[in-house]
């Protein structure tokens, strides 16, 4: 089916591709969002006091892309991976090894090889985690993630804990041209190549999201939904459960791989285990999916940008404790996560879209501003009740039920 206009129930819809039809308003919002992303490098350049920086936002975009992959497993197959950094890091390290040791600088080749490497990694890890579900799946993926982390740490040729950089070691190459390149453009961290890489990444992300959209609406996606709800039932329906879960795991790993390769092209001078393979990176990817809203398609990606901006701001916060001044970035991100888990379990996008908590609250507020009073009373009562419950719990705990 070709792109075009159609009318459904008197509502004008614009068809982008097969299965994807948007109302004009949503299309405008979407285009505005993408346009805003394209303008971000310029905004970051021209504003000093806003928390908009190209580096964290880029990191957020690629981690968000990895989170989109993780979300594919989480949302449809009901599997929580806690080891997605393995694919992210495999791709990043592949880029570094290809540039540094094999002197390949073409970004297209690098991307392709890195994604293949990540796919193989995902196939391998997926094979081992296949029999497991629920928490055990999370545990096993985490352990595999840590295995992937311990390999470069242990092998001194891969730089140990210092990691590698993606600069070619070939002789006779000027310093500015040692970086990965796209055509004649070297990604050497200067403003122009940085901005172009940023834009290329946006395009790749949009394509990846469209592919994911099609995938979710394909028979394969529906089959995964069935598997996620009840594996036994899905098997009785004749679905090849293991093969489908494995395929979903690999697809999810490919997204991690694309993200990792893009990360390595941008941060080519510092590809270290701590920022690409560590368990905290896996945790961040899961965090991002939850923050953005794991019941939505675009949520994880948006969550990535919000998360990195938040951690960038939070890492500047210093509290003076008994041991002197300490940065408390993790404390703040952890506290935000608590708020998300208890207050907004459907995440940012999930809360903002129609039917979401914030959206509905906003609509009620516009229709009848006087609800603020009952709301604040309700909130106060909620806090008091929670306190009472806590006291009661502790009392029962100590004295028993009397």
């Amino acid at each position, binding site marked *: 089916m070709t792109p075009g206009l159609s009318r459904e129930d008197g509502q004008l819809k614009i068809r982008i591709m097969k299965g994807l039809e948007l109302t004009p308003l949503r299309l405008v919002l979407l285009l505005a969002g993408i346009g805003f992303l394209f303008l971000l490098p310029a905004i970051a350049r021209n504003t000093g006091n806003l928390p908009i920086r190209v580096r964290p936002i880029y990191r957020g975009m690629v981690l968000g892309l990895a989170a989109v992959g993780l979300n594919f497993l989480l949302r449809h197959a009901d599997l929580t991976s*806690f080891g997605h950094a393995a694919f992210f890091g495999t791709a990043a390290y592949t880029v570094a090894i290809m540039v540094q040791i094999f002197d390949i600088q073409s970004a297209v080749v690098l991307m392709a090889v890195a994604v293949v490497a990540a796919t193989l990694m995902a196939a391998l890890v997926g094979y081992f985690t296949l029999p497991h579900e629920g*928490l055990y799946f999370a545990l096993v993926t985490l352990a595999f993630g840590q*295995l992937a982390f311990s390999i470069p740490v242990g*092998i001194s040729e891969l730089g140990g804990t210092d990691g590698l950089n993606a600069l070619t070691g070939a002789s006779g190459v000027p310093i500015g041209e040692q970086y990965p390149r796209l055509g004649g453009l070297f990604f050497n961290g200067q403003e122009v190549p940085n901005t172009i890489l940023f834009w290329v990444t946006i395009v790749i992300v949009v394509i990846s999201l469209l592919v994911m959209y099609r995938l979710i609406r394909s028979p394969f996606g529906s089959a995964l939904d069935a598997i996620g709800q009840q594996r036994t039932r899905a098997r009785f329906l004749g679905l090849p459960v293991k093969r489908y879960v494995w395929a979903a795991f690999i697809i999810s790993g490919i997204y991690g791989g694309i993200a990792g390769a893009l990360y390595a092209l941008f941060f080519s001078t510092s590809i270290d285990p701590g920022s690409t393979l560590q*368990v*905290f990176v896996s945790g961040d990817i899961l965090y991002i999916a939850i923050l953005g809203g794991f019941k939505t398609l675009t949520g994880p990606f948006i969550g990535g940008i919000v998360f990195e901006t938040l951690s960038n701001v939070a890492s500047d916060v210093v509290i003076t404790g008994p041991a002197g001044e300490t940065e408390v970035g993790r404390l703040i991100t952890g506290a935000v*996560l*608590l708020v998300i888990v208890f207050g907004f379990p459907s995440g940012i996008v999930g809360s903002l879209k129609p039917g979401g908590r914030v959206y509905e609250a906003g609509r009620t507020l516009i229709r009848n501003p006087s609800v603020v009073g009952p709301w604040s009373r309700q909130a106060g009562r909620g806090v008091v009740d929670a306190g009472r419950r806590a006291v009661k719990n*502790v009392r029962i705990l100590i004295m028993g039920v009397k």
Partner: protein
Amino acid sequence: MVLGTPLTIGDLLQPERFITQTINGLQAGFVLFLIASGLTVILGILDVLNLAHGELYALGAFIASSVGGYIVGTGANAIVSPPSGFDPVSSFAFVGVLILIALITALIMVPIGAIVETTLIRPIYERSQVYQLVLTFAILLIIADIVTLVWGSDPQQLAFSTKQAVNDIPSFELVGLGNIPTLVLMVILVSLGLGVALFWFFGRTKTGRIIRATAIDREMATALGVSTDRTFTLVFALGSFLAGFAGAMQFVITRAQTGMGEQALVLSFVVIVVGGLGSLRGAVVGAVVVGVLQNWMIVINPDFQTAAPFAVMVLILLVKPEGLFGTWGERT
């Protein structure tokens, strides 16, 4: 391109070296058992994969550094100076003091664990498991920063003179293994004692049986009048107790430092996979295997020291995906 340094298995086969590494491995394994047993029991009963467990262990180590610092001093600043050389009375008194430090630390961890369970984890039992993971991850982040906020990022050590006093007790020297400190023996024996107590608790006491019954069938236990809420809090507090005790042991033998929790957490996962979900016996075997293997690897090839436990895990997953000892509950 040759990856890493070559394997030198021959070095490990020298008898003295082999025994030394194995004993060091046992010590590491027993401490790991204390951590992993708490994690595995929490997982088996509460059905919560507590990602913050490693940070509870690290928190225990730092609390022990404060408790120990208060009682005997830290690093080169000893408060109590033992006489130099082996003096039976003072040396054994210091052993008692170290055990006391560990016990106080573990007891401090009990209310911390109980509060974390009742206030944060309890509200989400009914919800999707992904929220548990994310919630415990949030607790991990928060505890990690609280630790650096309170104790800073420098490693903390127990007073050297206290360690020396314990090491002056002749132990391994008597059998010709002079390079193993007596502290190692002390940690092995104390952890072993606690491990035995744990098996006794779950196997012989009424509370332990109630906990196991809850693990086997939560609804049935409730129907028989067991308060699952209380059991859950108790189990979480017990896990915190064990993590705190393990942290104190680790602090006594080496130091308390940032980042120790993360490593312990991941190794505990390996232990659970190797031993089997929720199995205490499995935790013993898994922890000893991981500890000993890592210490053998120091001699064979230090590059593979971190990767070796995961190789074992992959092997177990291939051969026996449910772990060496199946699910816990029916047996300890």
